[in-house]
Structures are given as C-alpha cells and as structure tokens.
C-alpha cells in the first residue's frame, strides 16, 4: 500500500498515543478516529473516549460515514461515559490527550474558531465555535491539534480572536499534512517534517517566519502501520477531510 499525507497524518497521530493513556476526540474528527482505531489495531492498550459515550468501542468495525458522533463509536463499547463526564475527567487532570482541530493558529498557540473579519459581534465570517477547545486545551495533559490543510490562511502571524490558548505548562503539538510542530518556550517550532513534504514547503505555507535550518524527517509509515490502517479504515473515511 502506498501512502500520502492522509496516511502519514493518521500514523503520526497514532504514534502519539501510549499505553494506559485516556485519549479523546470530538465531533467532525475522521482523522483522529482513524488514528485511534489504528493505535488499537497496533496493540496500544489505551482508553478511547468520545462524544457518543462509548468507552473503547469495537474498533474492528469500520466507519461508514465521516460523522464521529455515530454509533460506530458506541457499539461494542465496554462502558458508557458521556461528554459531560469526559469534560469533568479532563478538568480533574485525568485526560492524557485531546485531539482537536482549528481554523487558524499563531506561533504562540492562539487558536481561532470564532470569527474572521469584522469584530466578535459583527463578524464578516462567523466560524463554527471552538467546541471543547477553550476548556480542554488548558486542562488536558497533552493537546494534539490536527489540521489537514497547512497554508498561510490557517498558520497566521497573529489571530484576530483567541478562542482557545495553548498552555505552555502542558504538552501541545500540531500535526498537519506537511509536518509536526511542538510548543517550546511558548512558541511553536517544527519537530519533524513528513517524508511527503520538505522544510521549504513548510516554510512557504506558514505565516510566521521559521528560522530552523534543518529539522528531522519523520519516519515513513511502516508496512505494519499501513496494513493496520487499511484494516481499520477500508472505506477510506480519512479522506473526508482531504
């Protein structure tokens, strides 16, 4: 099986997950859903929680639609734990990873999901809202953002509105179709670039100046990872976001 940015992203997200962690994704999250099922298929022994309330749903059943609120993430679950309770779990420091997305982000980890143009009360473009982000980002041990379109409209020098802010006391990463950023000393820097991209491409598509001259290249997906990916997502639901 060949791979492209979609496969690389799913693999990169899955590699973030460790045994014994509690890991959450929200709605409209086909890439994290695929990545979490992939991590299960690769034998990682973590707890999968999501908005449907299903705890560790049956990952062997492939998703048939892009929605991550469907019973595909409920059926076969070992217990029920609703979103209200998941937020409480996070607020008491017991969620290890939240996978979240965004519309815009600055190098300082300010996330905009609220509006573009105009002001808050008179927006030119009203965005969907940050969902759980503003609460989860400061309280989850590690927030891992995924963003399938890395461009200068999304990776901006500064955001007009900060819906949620990365907490430099917590882990914070951003995984895109081109690279992985990690928060260090309050600023995002490139941790690795994907083999399907280059540092030059990352620089050309990022709205702030990246001064790093060399960065590691992430390991390409292994044959085992790609085979597991094909098994958990035969319907290619991950491509809904590309």
């Amino acid at each position: 099986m060949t791979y492209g940015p979609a496969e690389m992203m799913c693999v990169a997200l899955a590699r973030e997950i460790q045994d014994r962690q509690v890991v959450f994704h929200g709605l409209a999250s086909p890439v994290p859903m695929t990545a979490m099922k992939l991590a299960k298929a690769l034998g990682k022994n973590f707890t999968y929680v999501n908005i449907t309330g299903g705890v560790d749903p049956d990952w062997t059943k492939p998703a048939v639609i892009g929605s991550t609120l469907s019973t595909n993430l409920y059926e076969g679950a070992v217990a029920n734990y609703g979103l209200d309770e998941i937020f409480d779990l996070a607020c008491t420091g017991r969620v290890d990873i939240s996978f979240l997305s965004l519309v815009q982000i600055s190098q300082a980890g300010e996330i905009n999901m609220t509006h573009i143009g105009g002001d808050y009360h008179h927006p030119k473009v009203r965005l969907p809202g940050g969902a759980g982000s503003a609460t989860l980002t400061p309280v989850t041990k590690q927030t891992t953002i995924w963003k399938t379109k890395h461009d200068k409209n999304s990776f901006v020098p500064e955001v007009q509105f900060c819906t949620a802010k990365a907490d430099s006391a917590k882990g914070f990463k951003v995984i895109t179709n081109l690279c992985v950023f990690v928060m260090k000393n309050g600023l995002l820097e490139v941790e690795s670039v994907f083999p399907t991209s280059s540092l030059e491409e990352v620089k050309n598509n990022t709205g702030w100046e990246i001064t790093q001259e060399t960065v590691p290249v992430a390991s390409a997906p292994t044959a085992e990872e790609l085979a597991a990916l094909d098994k958990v997502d035969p319907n290619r639901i991950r491509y809904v976001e590309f």
Partner: protein
Amino acid sequence: MFSKLTSLTDAAQLIQDNQIISLSGNALHRNPAAFARELAGLKRKNLKILGAAHGYAADILCAVGSVAEIYFGFCGFENEYGLAPGIRKSIQEGTTKAVEGSCTAMIASLRGASYGLPFMGVGGLWGSDLVKTLPDFYRVMKSPFDETEVVCVKAIQPDWAIIHVQEADEYGNARILASEYQDILYTRAAKKTIITTEKIVSTAELQKEPKLTSIPHFLVEAVVLVPEGAKPGICYPDYETVDDRTMKSYINAVKNNTVDEYLQKQTQGGV
C-alpha cells in the same frame, strides 16, 4: 400519571415568543427535526437557543429569523455537510446574537440551572478571549475558600427542553437508546420538556428495566409520536445515515433564501 399525547401542531404552539429552548442531539444526530420545522413555520420571535453543539433543528429556526440569541460551543453539520448555514447567516446578518462558550461552559450553565443556582464554575478557559468579550455570560471570581481564580458562567434555565427519543409511553416516560449527548441535562435544567418519539411503547414494557428510562413523566408536558422525526438527520438504530438529498435541498434553500418554500414542501411530504 396523565396522558400527554398530542399532535405536533399543538405541541409546537406551546413555545411562545421570547422563550429559551434546548434541542436534543448533536450536529445531525437525533435532533427534533420535525418539531423544529413545525415551530419554524410559526415564525416565533426572539427565541433563545441554548446547547452544546447545534445542528439542523437550531439552524432552521435561525434561518427563518426566530432566534435572537444562540448559546453554543459549536454549530455545524460535520464534514461533508459543512458549517451550519442558517446559524452562520443569521449571526453574520445581525439577526442572531452569538454567545459562544466552550461546550463545557454551556454544560456548566445548564448545571447551574438544574441545581437551582445563579451561576456555576467551569474548568479551563484560561487565555480565551471569550471570557472578556462576553461579560454578560462569563465572570472570573475567587474561591471563597482559597483564593483560586475560577471562570464562572451565568446559569440559564430553558423554558423548554425538546427531546427526540426512540421510545416513550403516552405519559412521557422516555428512553434514549445509545448516545444521550447533553439531553438528560437539558431535561433537568428546563422548566418543562416536550418529547417527540419514534415509537410509543407500553408503560409495562418500560417497567421491565426502569434504569433505561432516563426521562420520567413528571418532567414532561407533551408527547408526540413522530416516526422519522429526526430526518433528514440520523436517529439510531432506525436510520443511521443522513438523507443526503433532503439535507442538500435544505442547505441550498438557506443559500437561496427559500427556506419558507422548503418548509412547505416538507410538510406536504415532498423534498
């Protein structure tokens, strides 16, 4: 117990101008869609909608101009169906005021209402511009015990929770199968609840496993039998994919300012 069975027309008439409502489900899942279309046809004014993640039902009420304020964490239809077009348009045009929380902030506000308190603390939110932008909803206070700063939200009590379920009896005892989202909290926070249901079942059936009946009759004002009442969205286990043609015709209707025509066709059983 008293029978609460009524028609969709009569149940929608219960909602008055200026009231606050919470609508069941999440994005395109288990919304009281048929109820929302009926209510949209009544052209109520200055409604307020409160919830965590709004979809089709809230969207159609915004699209017809009935909603003065919407409280939300997220508004959208997920992935291929994109952003909630009616909500977006009514906010951008200034018809509807947006009160954005995190989903957690809306849950906290509803918890405050259900506990009979005027406000509630909520976790996180540090660094978010939402807190300083919306002082009518958010305040920061110090714990009276140890000076810890806490973001607080105003408790808001909905007049009505409108909940679409899979099974209910005629008295309003109701079961939600699979995902409950925030619906149980909505019924505890609201003054009264309206149930629309895929199926009417006997009370004896519900008595076999009381724990599954998460909405008791005494909270409920009206029960309406509405098979396929969440369409064009999803309601487990009876229909698990979006009715693509109808959903797209709705999205196009918002785009083309023809939502009234869409509503007429819907109530006549057309597209």
